[in-house]
């Protein structure tokens, strides 16, 4: 039987899709692709018509177990709500040389602190951040915006309608986070206090999303980011 006619299992198909995508793909996108293929081709591809997101997650976990067992030098990582191929942490030195990346770039402590406040308290105004840090953050906020780690998400209802700042998809990417919920798991103290405050002052929550910290980016965000990428290239 020629190789093209062999019927792959779900794990193989998922692996092929993630490999070929060259970008991060979400479980939803993978599932849609399986459904579309079944619709267009029919026949044996119908086998994957009933696939659920959790089937896909299991396949990815199996793939990762295989890759790690065989020490392939790469695994499938989950970042910013999507899956993608990632080189292994221990091989970073060599990849760095190949890609001519030079030494690692890091944010300064004051910039990281500002970043942390925005990440845990978003949406937040500049004045509120300055209240917590106790110092003017104009410079730092400007450069975090330039680095596209922070963006304006909305305007507050406070007098003067100040901007509200939040994190970007690139923020999740830069720090290797699956989603914003992962931040809460890291620092439960900050997350709990946040909820307590939200309980006292519910009007401060974003009108369009009941739980902004769990906000996994919607289509608009992705569109925006893709536009930004286009500008760069």
């Amino acid at each position, binding site marked *: 039987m020629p190789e093209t006619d062999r019927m792959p299992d779900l794990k193989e198909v998922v692996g092929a899709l993630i490999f070929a995508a060259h970008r991060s793909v979400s479980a939803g996108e993978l599932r849609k692709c399986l459904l579309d293929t079944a619709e267009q081709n029919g026949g044996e591809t119908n086998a994957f018509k009933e696939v659920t997101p959790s089937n896909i997650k299991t396949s990815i976990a199996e793939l990762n177990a295989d890759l790690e067992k065989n020490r392939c030098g790469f695994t499938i990582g989950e970042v910013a709500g999507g899956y993608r191929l990632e080189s292994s942490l221990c091989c970073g030195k060599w990849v760095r040389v190949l890609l001519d990346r030079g030494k*690692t770039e890091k944010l300064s402590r004051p910039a990281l602190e500002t970043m942390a406040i925005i990440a845990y308290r978003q949406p937040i105004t500049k004045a509120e951040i300055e209240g917590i840090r106790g110092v003017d953050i104009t410079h730092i906020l400007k450069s975090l915006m330039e680095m596209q780690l922070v963006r304006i998400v909305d305007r507050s209802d406070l007098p003067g309608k100040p901007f509200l700042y939040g994190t970007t998809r690139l923020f999740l990417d830069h720090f290797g986070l699956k989603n914003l919920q992962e931040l809460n798991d890291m620092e439960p103290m900050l997350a709990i206090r946040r909820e307590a405050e939200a309980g006292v002052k519910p009007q401060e929550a974003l009108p369009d999303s009941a739980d902004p910290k769990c906000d996994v980016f919607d289509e608009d965000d992705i569109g925006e980011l893709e536009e930004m990428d286009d500008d760069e290239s």
Partner: protein
Amino acid sequence: MSAFQDDYKVELEVFEGPLDLLLYLIKKNEVDIYDIPIEKITTQYMEYMNLMKMLDLNIAGEFIVMAASLMMIKSRMLLPVEERDEIEEEEEEDPRWDLVRQLVEYKSFKDAAIRLEEMEYRQENIFAQGAGHVHMEADGPGALLGEISIFDLISAFNEVLKNARAEEIAEIVAHHYTVADQIDFVLRTVSIDKPLMFHALFKEESSRGEIICTFLALLELIRLRQILVKQDHQFADIVIEKNPDVDVADVDIGM
């Protein structure tokens, strides 16, 4: 101090705020954040603020506001409890409480920032298809100082300054130090294979003027990324190294 800086003005922005300084002092003194010895901390806070003024650092107005709040807390702590109650009947809590609350909150974000830093470092060594890359500006606040805080440097500077020989009254010293000269001096002293201890930069017989110029030169070289400063752990001796990524021939300090 302007005499030292006529020819070479060092413009240094301090990105740390008064809360950073207070947390630094609390850690340095190993005191309980919930029971701050306000008198001691206020005295030290003022000392650091004066040092920053002496160095002509661009310190934020918030430092002065905090100094005023500390003074107020200190004065209220001095009042006997009964009198304090008379003045502010409705408020019986510890006058330090607002400050403590603010410090504790900020501290938790500082800890969160350290976690983010670890994740950032980890992620820097993972390369992925379609991953975004953050472009950092060479001289933006994105890159300044790194491991060591400005207060570590000021603290080391303070120690050297305290040991400086007293100015002799009888003699008029013609020796005139400039920051530019001291930049040359530091660059000549520090070499790649030979790290230098912070204290070794200052001779025992150095005058205050010389110490201040050398320290400003050091800050400027850090800003220009010519040298790196490191510490094994906080409050350890500061080690100065030449930045191996910068070619000496490229040194242009804009004089």
